[in-house]
């Protein structure tokens, strides 16, 4: 049983923002619900008011523009991203990570935006989006503002989002379109699991971009490497950047070890 709350499903942005301004921190926005309903059930979240975003049709848009890049609206599910031919062609690293995110049922509901708003260190979409230089567009009654994904996530489950704001979309620029990428995720079992540690690698032209999940309070984007960088160079930069912890899923030593192992495997794919 969930605690009682009021519910609204606005169909227009104006209505959505006025509800958010009115209810402030007492309200929670609902899109996929795969984190929110779990948190309500376990008592971590206790909103008095739930505002379902899915009635606002423009928030479900997934589109590509040669100038601006890929626009992923707040209600775009993981399944919708995976089914998109343009995404599959231009952003293979997003596809690699999205296909490893949770289960088919959860991918049918969970959203890409929700994955980064939750801001878990192990969120599967954060590292690949960091590699692509993604930006986050926040919106409220008073307008919109854009921050980089690096600026957006500030700590474990912490972001710069304000109580009256939503993330209305993620923008993935075209800078690295044409690049190759892969995402490796360590799990405790072969089936679906949260990432124990993960590494995303994107090669574009003469550059290699690397991001790491579950090895620090936030997902980490390393500084760019030249395409002929040795595994040792990248591993050294990773060692300096990560601050893994022991937890129920893994020890910090194993996390650190697997980050380096994944870097070697991904780099071997690049040079294959």
């Amino acid at each position, binding site marked *: 049983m*969930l605690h009682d709350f009021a*519910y609204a499903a606005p169909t227009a942005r104006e209505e959505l923002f006025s509800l958010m301004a009115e209810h402030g921190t007492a309200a929670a926005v609902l899109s996929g619900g795969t984190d929110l*309903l*779990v948190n309500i059930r376990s008592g971590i979240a206790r909103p008095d008011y739930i505002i379902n975003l899915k009635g606002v049709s423009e928030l479900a848009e997934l589109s590509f523009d040669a100038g601006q890049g890929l626009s992923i609206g707040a209600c775009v599910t993981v399944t919708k991203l995976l089914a998109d031919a343009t995404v599959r062609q231009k952003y293979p690293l997003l596809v690699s990570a999205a296909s490893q995110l949770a*289960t*088919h*049922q959860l991918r049918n509901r969970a959203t890409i935006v929700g994955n980064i708003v939750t801001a878990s260190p192990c969120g599967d979409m954060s590292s690949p989006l960091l590699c692509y230089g993604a930006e986050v567009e926040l919106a409220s009654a008073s307008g919109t503002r854009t921050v980089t994904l690096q600026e957006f996530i500030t700590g474990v489950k912490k972001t710069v989002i304000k109580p009256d704001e939503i993330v209305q979309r993620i923008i993935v620029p075209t800078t690295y379109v044409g690049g190759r990428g892969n995402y490796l995720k360590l799990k405790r079992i072969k089936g*679906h699991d949260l990432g124990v540690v993960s590494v995303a690698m994107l090669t574009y032209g003469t550059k290699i971009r690397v991001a790491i999940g579950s090895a620090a309070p936030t997902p980490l984007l390393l500084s760019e490497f030249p395409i002929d960088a040795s595994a040792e160079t990248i591993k050294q930069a990773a060692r300096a950047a990560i601050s893994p912890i022991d937890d129920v899923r893994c020890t910090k030593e194993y996390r650190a070890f697997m980050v380096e192992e994944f870097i070697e495997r991904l780099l071997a794919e690049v040079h294959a």
Partner: protein
Amino acid sequence: MRKIRLRINGDLYERDVRESKTLLHFLREDAGLTGTKEGCGAGECGACTVFMNGETVNSCLVLAVEADGAELQTIEGETAEDGSLSAVQQAFARHHAVQCGFCTPGMIMTVKDLLQRKPKPTREQIIHGIESNFCRCTGYQQIVEAVLDVTGQLPDSDKEGLKYV
């Protein structure tokens, strides 16, 4: 309370529900369709899997009010009006892919969805396809065999006897 209208297995339901009620509890308590089970209640185990507008969802993670206007299919819709079982259900029975039975309704929904997307899945695709659903009894082997059978991928010699019992 809010009024919702939705179609379940072709039948129209119109009910007043609490905003905080999950779709799973609506199915079991309001619609009286207790075939769908609650396992973990947190999207981990897949026991509550149903079809919503053609896609499988964990009904424990959907609010009933979100399903207003939706088309649902549950395990009750698998069986024909005369009580005869669907091909997937028959294959599960033939291969003893059911032990305690708690995961079975969700598992069958997941298999049905898998077969819509991949009509002839390989063993690996079946294993990957049912990763969303926990079964603590069978060890999954009989379930995989049932799916191979219903898709015509088991030699006749493998269909005889109860190999894994």
